[in-house]
């Protein structure tokens, strides 16, 4: 074990100890602790927890690399993944909070007064969250595996054990505060390297202001090499695909059950609005930095690595060639490495930056701990969501409504352990390309849930038949389009990752048409929807709005 490995290992173990300590301190004692952290999280801290919950291994490790590889076309991810918080905070979160349930399937089941709708929603939640968590566990496996030169398999297993311990102990309450800690660690780890890189390249420590000029210079180098410029629009895909992908990511973000449930942990509609605002600010720190990472890394690779004689490349290139993420070959045999002869893997950019910019052992270890924090925080939130779908929506609401609080807590804990083990087993041998599968999870979340939730809180006429038809048709058409486009049958050049643009409108139409063709929902359910227009203090009852001013009932 060399010095670097000791420093990285020490930092990662220290953060693990911190997470477990936090969840022991915040042990869940009742079901409302376990599922919604007793609904008392202040908006500022909830925003930070949403940031940790939301930013996954893919955001931390992969996004800068995606922008580096795709240029302008990679920005669909940046706008899509942040724009979703607009839809969520404006259209869904406050109303869902006022409705006051534990989970997304529970909202759907109670709002439409339909157990079939509840079951479909619970199963869809489990499928979406499982798809997503497999990506997180593989991500944490890659980080540990690369650091300690052990197979990624053991890395995955270590990650699984850690998450299972703290999620089981603390439930949502413990996970909330570990997510806050994880957010702080991951954002520091993300920003420090890029500040130093900005200093090295431009002499200014604020990368967000300086990388514009670097992007311009990269474009100039591209021009000289006869390549399409880095910032040229739609060089890698059609405009229609860009728009479809951005739409899918936005709508999917706003309908992911593990994100929505975080809005249940605050006190009021007002607190939900502020949570959304703080969350996007905290998420923005990372998303605004990713294009800067991409620009600086590409600039350094283009100016300091490309153009070097093959036998004088920097030492770090060897390590990364060994991992398979960096490929270089002197194709024209002139003994000099050209830019076109370098192939950079997406997952390498952030992890390799501290080495490329020569920032020393501590920063390299910090980035590793940050990547682990990103993977674990998202996995923790997902596990709570999966477990609540099983233990709350299926076991308690459908199978055994008489279960005691103790029994349900136990069921929740067992569900977490089981789903961690299953997800871990799948992640040992992940099916297909992780980033692509995660993109599908967004299409599925948007295609299954968004129209149903949106109409459910805004349109009183929406009924159970509409919700069931919408979810099934949305899920079916999204899956169908993914398969068709994988086999080369595409509408308007939209690829599988943009399937949401097909599934979401289909779902919306199905909800509206089927609802209008069948009987309206009970008056009580319609009144509940009108009640969501007003803050908690105002209540809608029998066609009249009442203000609770504390003067008796």
């Amino acid at each position, binding site marked *: 074990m060399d010095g670097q490995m000791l420093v990285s290992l020490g930092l990662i173990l220290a953060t693990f100890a911190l997470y477990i300590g936090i969840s022991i301190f915040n042990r869940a004692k009742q*079901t409302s602790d376990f599922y919604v952290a007793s609904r008392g999280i202040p908006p500022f801290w909830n925003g930070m927890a949403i940031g940790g919950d939301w930013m996954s291994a893919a955001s931390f490790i992969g996004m800068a690399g995606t922008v580096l590889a795709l240029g*302008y076309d990679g920005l669909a991810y940046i706008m899509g993944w942040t724009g979703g918080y607009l839809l969520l905070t404006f259209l869904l979160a406050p109303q869902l909070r006022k409705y006051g349930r534990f989970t997304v399937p529970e909202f759907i089941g109670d709002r439409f007064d339909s157990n079939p709708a509840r079951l479909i929603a619970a199963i869809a939640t489990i499928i979406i969250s499982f798809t997503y968590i497999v990506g997180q566990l593989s991500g944490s496996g890659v980080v540990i595996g690369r650091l300690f030169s052990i197979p990624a398999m053991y890395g995955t297993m270590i990650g699984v054990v850690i998450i299972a311990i703290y999620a089981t102990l603390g439930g949502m309450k413990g996970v909330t505060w570990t997510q806050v800690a994880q957010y702080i660690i991951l954002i520091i780890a993300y920003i420090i390297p890029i500040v130093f890189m900005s200093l090295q390249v431009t002499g200014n420590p604020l990368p967000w202001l300086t990388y514009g000029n670097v992007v311009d210079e990269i474009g100039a180098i591209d021009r000289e090499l006869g390549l399409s410029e880095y910032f040229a629009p739609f060089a890698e895909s059609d405009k229609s695909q860009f728009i479809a992908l951005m739409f899918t990511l936005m709508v999917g973000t706003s309908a992911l059950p593990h994100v929505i449930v975080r809005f249940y942990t605050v006190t*009021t509609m007002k607190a939900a609005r502020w949570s959304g605002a703080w969350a996007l600010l905290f998420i*923005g720190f990372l998303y605004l930095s990713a294009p800067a990472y991409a620009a600086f890394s590409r600039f350094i690779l283009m100016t300091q690595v490309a153009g070097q004689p093959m036998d004088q490349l920097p030492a770090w290139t060897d390590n990364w060639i060994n991992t398979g993420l960096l490929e270089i070959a002197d194709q024209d045999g002139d003994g000099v490495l050209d830019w076109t002869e370098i192939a950079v893997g997406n997952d390498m950019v952030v992890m390799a930056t501290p080495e490329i910019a020569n920032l020393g052992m501590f920063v390299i270890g910090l980035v590793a701990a940050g990547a682990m924090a990103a993977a674990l925080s998202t996995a923790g939130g997902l596990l709570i969501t999966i477990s609540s779908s099983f233990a709350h929506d299926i076991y308690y609401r459908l199978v055994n409504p008489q279960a005691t609080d103790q029994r349900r807590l136990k069921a929740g804990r067992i569900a977490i352990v089981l789903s961690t083990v299953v997800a871990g087993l799948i992640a040992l041998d992940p099916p297909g390309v992780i980033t692509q599968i995660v993109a599908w999870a967004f299409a599925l979340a948007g295609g299954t849930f968004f129209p149903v939730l949106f109409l459910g809180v805004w349109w009183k006429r929406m009924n159970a038949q509409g919700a069931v038809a919408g979810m099934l048709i949305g899920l079916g058409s999204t899956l169908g389009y993914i398969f068709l486009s994988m086999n080369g049958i595409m509408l308007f050049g939209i690829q599988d990752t943009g399937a949401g643009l097909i599934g979401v409108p289909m779902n919306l139409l199905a909800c509206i048409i089927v609802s209008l063709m069948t009987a309206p929902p009970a008056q009580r359910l319609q009144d509940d929807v009108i009640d969501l227009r007003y803050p908690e203090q105002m209540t809608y009852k029998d066609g009249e709005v009442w203000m609770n001013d504390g*003067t008796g009932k």
Partner: protein
Amino acid sequence: MKKVEKEVADRYFRTRTTLIIIFLGIGFLVSFGVVAFAEFFSQFTFLGVELHYYMGSQGAVVIFILCLFFNAVLSDRIDRKFGIDDEANTSISNGKTINH
């Protein structure tokens, strides 16, 4: 309990909804709008980079964040104008929420 005039209650809902439509409209224009006419916007530059790239990498995200904060502040102001007391909201919400 005090009855709220239908006109007042409707006005509250309309004001809030108008706000939401305006902010979502802004968000739509700076993301989808700029992407749809990316070629047009590429003739301008901002902070050293062509405008369509700037909007995608920073501009849109910053405007999204501002929209959310403006909405939170303005909504609080509207609530106050309609006599909503946040502490009452909190205690009512605690009593009403279904924690089963």
